[in-house]
């Protein structure tokens, strides 16, 4: 058993952390949150230059071939800085789908561009009923000669407002099928929603959108299986981001509590504050060590759906507890736009729903336990 990171991974972490600290302090994050684009295109180019987008993809397409944990390290550091970017939707959701399910041409065309920072992708997979199981997808794709016609509305598509292409999951005769659609194709309308995370969550409306069968990822009907496999990894990567947020929110709050004087006492000396902080820490520590194991299981190809679900469900609770206690300890100023703790409080709630809420994941655990 070894809980240590490799020297390369330590170096990667340091470089990501330094970059984000320099380029995207919290004030910049707040500006990004209020921008229409919801990300900083200049930073996106720089990130590509640092080879973040390619870290986990095969060298054949210009990637770095690092293990999955490296990708998680980047996500964790982004989480620490509450950094908004289309990294998750482009590299993790869509990138993994293409890498695992795409044909050679898709990979050559798309992965290469993703890695170079020249392509932003969005996954349009959920619908208004907010069902999470890929097999429940209902939007229809009808054949029309060699092509397909897409009609319907997708919701909760990350970064569709800035994406060049959208991967959309729709139902064909064979079952759930993944299509790659140009974001500016005729009949595609994107509407950005306001969320508690002030992120790029969008509706995507498809009105008689024509797609060629060449733009199917994998085979028709294979969509739910591909989504399932990708989402296992994407969930763990989201957990990495959440753990980063937990750590910052916890340390930021501890620092504030040590400096804030009330009743002639640093409030950090009050037992109730101390116990809140201890609860934050022990929630975090149990999750991060569990996260290491789950990440390792993913890398080793060990079946881990049950543990991915258990980790995400528990981390949903832990991050929200840390966010809520963080605001409570900050007191009134913790509720303002000015102070940074609310960045994490708001993300904790949004991330609770992304890649599955606790009710969903605990139910998955129960099923895996044979219930």
């Amino acid at each position, binding site marked *: 058993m070894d809980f240590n990171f490799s020297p390369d991974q330590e170096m990667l972490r340091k470089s990501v952390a330094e970059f984000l600290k320099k380029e995207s302090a919290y004030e910049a994050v707040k500006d990004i949150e209020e921008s229409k684009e919801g990300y900083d295109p200049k930073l996106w180019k720089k990130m590509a230059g640092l080879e973040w987008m390619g870290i986990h993809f095969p060298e054949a397409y210009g990637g770095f071939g690092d293990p999955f944990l490296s990708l998680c390290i980047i996500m964790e550091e982004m989480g620490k800085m509450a950094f908004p970017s289309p990294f998750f939707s482009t590299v993790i959701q869509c990138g993994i789908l293409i890498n695992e399910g795409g044909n050679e041409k898709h990979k050559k065309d798309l992965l290469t561009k993703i890695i170079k920072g020249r392509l932003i992708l969005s996954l349009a997979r959920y619908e208004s009923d907010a069902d999470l199981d890929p097999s429940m997808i209902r939007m229809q794709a009808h054949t029309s000669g060699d092509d397909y016609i897409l009609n319907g509305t997708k919701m909760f598509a990350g970064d569709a407002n800035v994406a060049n292409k959208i991967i959309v999951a729709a139902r064909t005769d064979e079952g759930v099928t993944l299509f790659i659609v140009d974001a500016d194709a005729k009949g595609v309308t994107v509407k950005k929603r*306001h969320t*508690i995370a002030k992120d790029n969550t969008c509706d995507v409306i498809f009105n008689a959108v024509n797609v060629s069968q060449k733009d199917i990822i994998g085979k028709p009907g294979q969509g739910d299986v591909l989504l399932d496999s990708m989402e296992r990894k994407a969930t763990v990567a989201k957990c990495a981001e959440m753990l980063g947020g937990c750590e910052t929110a916890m340390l930021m709050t501890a620092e504030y509590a040590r400096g804030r004087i009330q009743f002639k006492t640093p409030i950090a000396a009050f037992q109730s*504050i101390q116990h809140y902080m201890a609860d934050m820490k022990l929630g975090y520590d149990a999750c991060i060590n569990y996260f290491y194991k789950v990440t390792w299981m993913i890398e080793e190809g060990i079946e881990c759906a049950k543990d991915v679900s258990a980790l995400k469900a528990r981390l949903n609770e832990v991050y929200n507890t840390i966010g809520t206690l963080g605001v409570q300890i900050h007191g*009134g100023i*913790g*509720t*303002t736009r000015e102070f940074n703790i609310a960045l994490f409080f*708001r993300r904790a709630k949004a991330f609770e729903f992304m890649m599955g809420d606790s*009710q969903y994941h605990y139910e998955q655990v129960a099923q895996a336990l044979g219930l």
Partner: protein
Amino acid sequence: MDFRLTKQEQQLKEMYEDFFRNAIKNAPDIFKRGGGFEATFSDDEGFAFHRKMATILGEKNWLSLPWPKELGGSEASIMHQLIFNEAREVSRCPGYDFHGCAMFAPTLLVFGNDDQKKRFLPPIARGEVQYCQAWSEPDAGSDLSSLQTSAKKDGDNWVINGQKVWVTAAHRADCMFTIVRTDPESTGSKGLSYFYVDINSPGIEVRPLYYMNGAHVYNEVFFTDVRVPHKDLIGGEGNGWQVTMATMNFERSGMGFFSTGKKALDRIIDYVKTTRRNGELLSENAFIRQEIGKIYASLEAGTMLAYRVGFTQASGDMMAAASAASESKILGSEISRDISDFGTKVLGLHGMLEESDATPLLNVIEEYQNSVGLTIAGGSNEIQRSIISWMAPLNMPRWKLVNPATVKK
């Protein structure tokens, strides 16, 4: 024991409920999505409707229900007020200026002199003025008595300098009440005085303090040589702490938490009855059923605690009423947080959206964000819990925390 409403109370209840049920129909959409401080003070249209309703309530003499008849009131019983408040809060209809009607007016009734009552009460009764409360300071939050904003006597005036924070609605208000240090030698709760201040006085600057979601409800208020006439000092020089504590204790039943909570629960029940997710009607899910049962029980138990506060106040046991009020505030703010959190959870992915047309449960994410403020404002729940423990019957001792480095062995 008797929990029946008298015939007259029942009639009042129906009248108020009818009135507010109809009134809210004409409100801007933002109130139909749930209302609250954000709708009232952050939104121009919302504030205009609030002012309009205030005038109507004033015309009906409903803003001065408990006041003595000679001051234009109705000498309504506490029960009558609770009925009025509950009907109003359930409807989420604005128009009742909490600061003016529920804090400043009762304070005046106890501590104001005749001149002050005559000058300040009638505009409140008519719903003509918006008040705000300026107490906290950047370094005096939970520890309010360490406040440093000062007033110096200068002839017939006092000259105020300093800074206040968390001034709800200051950007919308006509007048303010505040507590400042009038004895520069004093520390803690001594040497403080309580003032009425015209918000348009020269030297007052109001700066927005944006909430995490961008809403503008709170403000910072800066005082630079603000001159306030001596006749606007309430309750006598140096008595500010006593007056402030009294102001805090008026209208603290916490009923509003439970009334609005019931409304929120009703919306959740409607939603789960009609929504399928992951192959199942949400209302068939035993986990959701259990949570709804729990929330119902908390709200009903909390409502009775809030009534108990009113009953105990009416019976004159102010210490017991204050302790029960703290309990009601803790329970109410925490159930508000729990309901809105649960509301986001039943929405699934919709739970992170702020817009209403995509979130079938109106306003829940706004309420969720506001709810973290509820457990802080008006004395954090941690302070409130300690205070409860210091009072009868628990009588825990109130020891001090000291830095061991500064204590000799």
